[in-house]
């Protein structure tokens, strides 16, 4: 479980996050949603320690991340897997070498065992026979899946996914969503997905946090999301025609 308490972050005079508190539950797909520029990616970066917040703290199973020494932080980070919006695969390494990278840096065992583990992770995300290709030689969807394979290589307790569906076609996006959900159940991870894709929210969201103007505006389940009377949340959810159609159908069925 990850708990955020009173977290605030600003860059110069620009207050990006204000007094955010939230609980992200283990074994669930927790989603942070909000419009572009609302501060959801900054919140995630504060949670993984890439940004230091001015106020507040982040607790990993009760341990405050920002109060830890460097060695303890490194330990926590080895329990984190992260899928980046851009996949962030290392250009100079092959697909297999990318997945093996965290294992080589931190895991004990022979080269062969690491190779087997990396191949298992690649199989798990349905990447087969691409071991020797470089990231630039595979599609965006495949890059995301390799990014997921790398993120789960060390069997993380915490899985962060920053806009995993951005730039993907709808079918591939659903595949990635399903994969994240399956892996969360399989490894019982605390999964945090940053997204503004409503399809993704409706497919996988279990604990949803809506960030608006740098503040936590709303938190609840998928069912509560559809029944909410929060104006800003509804403007966000029903911005697209598809969701408006869903709402019309629901209202007509009442």
């Amino acid at each position: 479980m990850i708990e955020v308490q009173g977290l605030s972050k600003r860059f110069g005079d620009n207050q990006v996050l204000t007094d955010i508190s939230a609980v992200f539950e283990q074994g669930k797909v927790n989603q942070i949603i909000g419009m572009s520029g609302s501060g959801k990616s900054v919140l995630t970066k504060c949670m993984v320690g890439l940004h230091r917040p001015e106020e507040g703290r982040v607790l990993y199973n009760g341990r405050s991340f920002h109060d830890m020494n460097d060695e303890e932080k490194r330990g926590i980070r080895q329990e984190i897997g992260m899928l980046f919006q851009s996949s962030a695969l290392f250009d100079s390494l092959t697909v297999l070498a990318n997945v093996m990278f965290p294992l080589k840096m931190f895991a004990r065992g022979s080269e062969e065992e690491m190779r087997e583990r990396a191949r298992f992770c690649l199989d798990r995300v349905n990447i087969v026979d691409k071991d020797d290709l470089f990231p630039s030689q595979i599609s965006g969807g495949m890059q995301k899946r390799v990014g997921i394979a790398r993120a789960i290589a060390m069997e993380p307790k915490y899985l962060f996914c920053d806009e995993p569906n951005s730039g993907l076609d709808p079918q591939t996006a659903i595949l990635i969503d399903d994969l994240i959900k399956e892996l969360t159940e399989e490894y019982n991870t605390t999964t945090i997905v940053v997204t503004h894709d409503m399809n993704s929210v409706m497919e996988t969201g279990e604990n949803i946090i809506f960030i608006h103007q740098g503040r936590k505006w709303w938190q609840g389940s998928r069912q509560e999301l559809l029944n909410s009377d929060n104006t800003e949340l509804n403007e966000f959810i029903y911005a697209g025609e598809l969701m408006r159609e869903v709402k019309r159908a629901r209202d007509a069925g009442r």
Partner: protein
Amino acid sequence: MQILFHFGRYFLLLKDVFGRPERFRIYWRRTLEEMDLLGVQSLGIVALLSAFMGAVITIQTKTNIDSPLIQAWVVGFATRQSVILEFSPTVISLILAGKVGSNIAAEIGSMRVKEQIDALDIMGVNSAGYLILPKLAATILINPFLVMISMFLGIFGGWLAGVQAGVISSDDFILGIQTGFKPFHVTYALIKTVVFAFIITTISAYQGYFTRGGTREVGISSTRAVVYSNVVILLANLVLTRVLLL
């Protein structure tokens, strides 16, 4: 105030660079790869420049001191001194700052804007150490060899051009390069080379590591890496010459 900020951040980065490596074996393998990329692959340009510069130094020295009062071997002597004391350690380092420095800044800067450095940090890898230390070790180890090769080829180029152009006899040139030779001058040149290698690598890595934005900013970082490295090399050259030779 801005310069103090950069100084502080540069030294904090160096502290991370010299942090404990996660896996020494991986760092060593990366150092060997960087020695090839940053050193061996610079050999061609270093050899070409050294041979031609040595040739030009010989011919220009001869045309400038063409006097019956000055003995012929002085041309060989002047060529050796110019090449060993200044051309090979300093000019070659300035050229490497352009080639190697821009490469380092662009590579690390691209990794920054593509979130690959964030990925390393989140994995718990000391990104500064992993990315910069092997490059630093590589340039500090390989640049002295490049400079020694440059010294040899510079003097050889001078001899070849001098003899071929008929401005000096082979015997006079060889007598010149043997006259008044001080082995410390080679040591001095190699000390300068190591210091310059440190300057090129750390300043370029600093520029790349703190790149923000996109590809345009990567280009700006790369340019800054070359300009700042060159300026600091020139300043360090003056200081080292003052300290080591006077």
